[in-house]
């Protein structure tokens, strides 16, 4: 059996202790394969961001194992790129300096740094804004810059925590398409957290549905839709059918009579 890229093995996360203890995640087990896009959906309080932070190495689990490439995660590392909902661009650096930040840490020379940064900025359509400061960018552009910054350090895993959550519906659809396009040219493993069911289905190979209180696995749903995805796929009856399945799973209506 090929080794999974990301594995959760009986993972639990408890915050606090004693009578104030709060179980955020309980008995979570799933795999994400290499080069796969997996979306994680669920109501708030299902621990989806917590799960992602554990893969990123920003948070440790209380029990169980979180593995990347078969090795337990102990700290953040440039093999796992993270894209935050709040963009988290450094406002005191220009767009290009933001993208170069991770490359500088890898001790890359100035020329190569610049080349790589410009390459990824071109990929997300921001080449003309390389010398602008983030304050002059719109929300969508900031998030594209954050994506370029994450891509530039060449991670094998991209962790995205509701990256398009703060954007308007139109920009969101554009960025979903752009993410898929970027992915098709440069395939990485993507773990994508969202609370938007349409988004979860549209970009994913598989959707992991979590339930809340405590956070646990509800269902894993395969998305058998062809790539590349476009409006035709989005409007197809097959898409609607899968979306309805995910919707029911998220809202616990799978078994009850409607």
């Amino acid at each position, binding site marked *: 059996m090929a080794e999974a890229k990301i594995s959760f093995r009986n993972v639990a996360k408890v915050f606090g202790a004693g009578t104030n203890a709060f179980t955020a995640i309980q008995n979570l087990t799933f795999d994400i394969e290499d080069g796969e896009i997996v979306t994680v959906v669920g109501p708030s309080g299902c621990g989806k961001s917590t799960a992602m932070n554990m893969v990123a190495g920003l948070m440790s689990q209380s029990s169980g194992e979180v593995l990347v490439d078969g090795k337990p995660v102990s700290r953040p590392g440039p093999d796992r790129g993270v894209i935050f909902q709040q963009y*988290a661009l450094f406002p005191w650096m220009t767009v290009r300096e933001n993208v170069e930040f991770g490359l500088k840490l890898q001790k890359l020379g100035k020329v190569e740094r610049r080349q790589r940064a410009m390459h990824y900025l071109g990929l997300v359509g921001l080449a003309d804004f390389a010398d602008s*400061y983030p304050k*002059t960018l719109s929300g969508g552009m900031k998030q594209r810059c954050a994506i370029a910054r994450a891509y530039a350090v060449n991670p094998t895993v991209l962790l995205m925590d509701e990256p398009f959550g703060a954007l308007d519906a139109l920009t969101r659809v554009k960025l979903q398409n752009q993410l898929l396009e970027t992915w098709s040219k440069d395939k990485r493993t993507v773990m994508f957290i969202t609370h938007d069911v349409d988004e979860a289905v549209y970009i994913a190979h598989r959707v992991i549905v979590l339930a809340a209180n405590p956070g646990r696995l509800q269902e894993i749903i395969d998305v058998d839709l062809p790539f590349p995805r476009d409006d035709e796929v989005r409007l197809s009856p097959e898409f609607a059918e899968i979306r309805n399945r995910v919707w029911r799973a998220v809202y616990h209506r799978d078994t009850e009579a409607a």
Partner: protein
Amino acid sequence: MSVVSDIAVSEPGNRRWAPGNLFWATLSFAGGIGLWWLATVAGFSELPTPWSVLTRMIELGIDGQLWLDMYASLRRVLIGFALGSILAVPVGFLMGWYNIARALIDPWIQFFRVIPPLAIIPLAIVTMGIDETPKIFVIFLAAFLSAVVSTYQGVISVDKTYINAARVLGASDGTIFARVIIPASTPFILVGFRIGLGSAWATVVAAELIAAQSGLGFRMQQAQLYYDLPTIFVSLVAIGILGLIMDRVVVRVEERLTHWQERV
């Protein structure tokens, strides 16, 4: 690659003074001086006329006395302010970064903050003599206390997401400190400098009123003995102008160093 065409937000509004504002400010000053002149001509008060103040200012300027006083006061403020700020930044960073440092230092700062720096003067004079040292020390204290609090506030209010973003890109603690904490807290530090310079300036004048042989405050105190109102006015105007210039310089530096900030 499809280029997404959401448009860049325009540059934030320029907050500099428009020429129109300058016009109104000039008019306002001219009006104020006009009223002052009317009041003295009509004999409502014993204030010197604007004309006699201007004459005295020119006299003192030619005489050199005014420049010496300004130099003496400025020198104290700048030395005290520089020492206070230079110490405040590392102490503020220590307090923001290490909980133990905060627990050790914060009570002292909170305690000294509620004592007006001027109240330290009697003690400073007794223990440090009557030369420059006690005055500079008191100004140092005033500047330090303002700047240290805002530096510390700046460090603890750095958005955690920036730290996480740097960490996942592979940054060490040292890099995070140098490339994230310091720039992110710069706006706070500069606000502290601005407040610190203001309180240093206020303190120096008061300190000179109490105990000095030179400076603008000393000159006013002397003038008071001889009922020399024009000289008091000249000193007040000089204090105001110098204070305004120093404040503008800090604001300019602030604009330079934090131009990246989103301003509402």
